[in-house]
């Protein structure tokens, strides 16, 4: 439970390596945007405003993963200047899609994209924010759900704990009455090991979940892989399914590596 902030809280948004989708989710709250903007002082939101007020900040929303030497330093400053640090999205929480580099030689990657790789300053791995600083709350998703984002901001402003489900996607499917794509069509689906949050989107469109919200607590990834093999998935397919926007989240990483060299 976070202590209540008395005056209009100062809100800052920080971007590291990301697609900006998570902070754009805030702008996509068309009906609530101006009321949120009225409830806080927006002190730093460079994608929307020229105003860049100095810290300290009450709430910092951090998007993106750490991939450069400069970011390593910047994220420490963000922590230092902020009362609460809330990370938003898979990039910040697990390293994001760009953590696919973690499984390869990054110098090789730089050479594929740039003719003169020596100009490019980058770290070997894309890592989550919590690897570097203390994080007060992590909101999952690629992108985060806008309803959950509003819930977290409102909870912080009023000093209560955010109400965000931690169950698996399977439960969301059952609640919505969506037919299980795995049992009905044998489609490999990450639902059993993925955190709820999207409203069982992919299964309701007749496709398997690809893990935007990352692993749920105590995810039994090994038993899921086994089930997929029985459905006919190859080892390579299993590796690829776990290597999506949360490839670097510990349970997914471990599972993909377990199937890599067979």
């Amino acid at each position, binding site marked *: 439970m976070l202590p209540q902030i008395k005056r209009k809280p100062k809100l800052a948004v920080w*971007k590291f*390596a*990301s*697609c*900006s*989708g*998570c*902070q*754009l*989710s805030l*702008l*996509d709250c*068309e*009906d609530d*945007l*101006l009321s949120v*903007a009225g409830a806080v002082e*927006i002190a730093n*939101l*460079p*994608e*929307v*405003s*020229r*105003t*860049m007020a100095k810290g300290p900040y009450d709430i910092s929303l951090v998007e993106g993963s750490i*991939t*450069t030497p400069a*970011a390593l330093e910047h994220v420490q400053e963000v922590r230092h200047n902020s009362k609460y640090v809330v990370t938003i999205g898979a990039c910040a929480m697990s390293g*994001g*899609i*760009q953590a*696919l*580099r973690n499984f*390869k030689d*990054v110098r*090789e*990657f*730089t050479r*594929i*994209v*740039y*003719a*003169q790789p020596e*100009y*490019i300053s*980058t770290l070997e791995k894309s890592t989550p924010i919590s690897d570097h600083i203390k994080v007060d709350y992590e909101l999952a998703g*690629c*992108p985060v759900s806008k309803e959950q984002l509003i819930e977290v901001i409102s909870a912080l402003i009023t000093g209560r704990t955010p109400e965000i489900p931690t169950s698996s996607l399977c439960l969301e499917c059952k609640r919505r009455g969506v037919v299980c794509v795995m049992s009905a069509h044998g489609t490999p689906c990450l639902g059993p090991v993925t955190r709820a949050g*999207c409203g069982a*989107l*992919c299964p*309701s*469109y*007749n*496709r398997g979940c690809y893990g935007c919200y990352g692993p749920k607590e105590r995810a039994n990834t090994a038993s899921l892989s086994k089930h997929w093999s029985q459905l006919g998935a190859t080892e390579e*397919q299993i590796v*690829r399914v776990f290597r*999506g*926007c949360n490839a670097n989240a510990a349970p997914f990483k471990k599972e993909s590596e377990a199937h890599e060299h067979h």
Partner: protein
Amino acid sequence: MNTTRTIRVDNLTRVEGEGALYVKIKDDLVENVQLKIYEPPRFFEAFLRGRHYEEVPDITARICGICPIAYQVTAVQAMEDAFGLKVDDQIRALRKLIYCGEWIESHVLHVFMLHAPDFLGYADAIEMAKDHPEIVQRSLQMKKVGNQIVTLLGGREIHPINLRVGGFYKVPEKKDFAQLAERLKWAREAALESVGWAASLPFPNFEQSYEFVALDYPGEYPLNEGRVVSNKGLNIGVHEYDDHFIEEQVPYSNALHARLKERGSYFVGPLARYNLAFERLSPIAKEAARAAGLGATCLNPFQSIIVRAVEILHACDEALRLIDEYEVPNQPSLKVEPRPSIGHSASEAPRGILYHRYELDEQGLILDATIIPPTSQNQSIIEKDLKYFVEQHLNLPKEELTWKCEQAIRNYDPCISCATHFLRLEIERES
């Protein structure tokens, strides 16, 4: 005596992503302009290697949270080109419809929230909302309609999940569009008013001669596919793209600069489309442009805000037409049979041409990927505009000149996450 001055903006705002501007002025001449993109590289083209074609729309969407549809549509069309698939007309229509949704959502965001505050002297749209609440509220509702199209067809507004190679995972019924169509009619009215409003903003006199490049498809305003044409005689198929364009690396930027091999810098985006395809705008959009005092040619990038408003109107009207003519396709998607092949596609992202090329093996795994986003293509034109603009406005106080330079950059709605697969402003003056 030599005098040197610099203008620098270390953290360019109201653009998507992270970048900076540096301008060096010596003896009233601009010696150097650098649009620096320090957004960290994310190496999409590298980690696409070894991935399966089916995963590509979901992976490439993550390049950009503002225009995921552009990435998804271009990726699936490139795969279809590789595998020799031709989708049903109604599948094509649905893709155009979801693309219209993205144009509306992205353009409204830029026109009202990112660009308009420059013309009216506000730090941001939230400040602007205090003096112009109806304009900002209305724009948010227009944006919402764009997002509703994307959500209806794609499942959610950011990184939709319904597009796939060969079609869609699930297609809507005709009745699913009823409510949306009503909202779109409202948005079309709102867009019509916005064109007049945008035209009433104050514009600097600023014109240059540009090579405009856009897609060309018979009978249609450029959107999801077509040949690549320019006002200086370029007319090529998408598969010839690599023969005519090159990407170069500059030491100060993480984004590659694309150039036309023969003639150098070129201009993509709303202004290019407008100048090359004015006649193919929907009648209501064409009329609104004329009523706003815009001819068939517009060479002032500051007026791109009007052109974007015209395109919002066009996209609303086109979306309504597509919905009206929609019939449920025979099947949601075609069967895909991968083969060793190379596929190309280009589409008109809200900011201009987006080009994808993939080389695939017999299992449909990616061997090689090239992605050229609009912002890489516009970088050198933006630098040129800044050079001329600063030279014309040397007498402005530094604070004002700096802001105007930022505005000149925002004329292009640069999307920096895309270009690195952002911006800081620095103006150096010797004086």
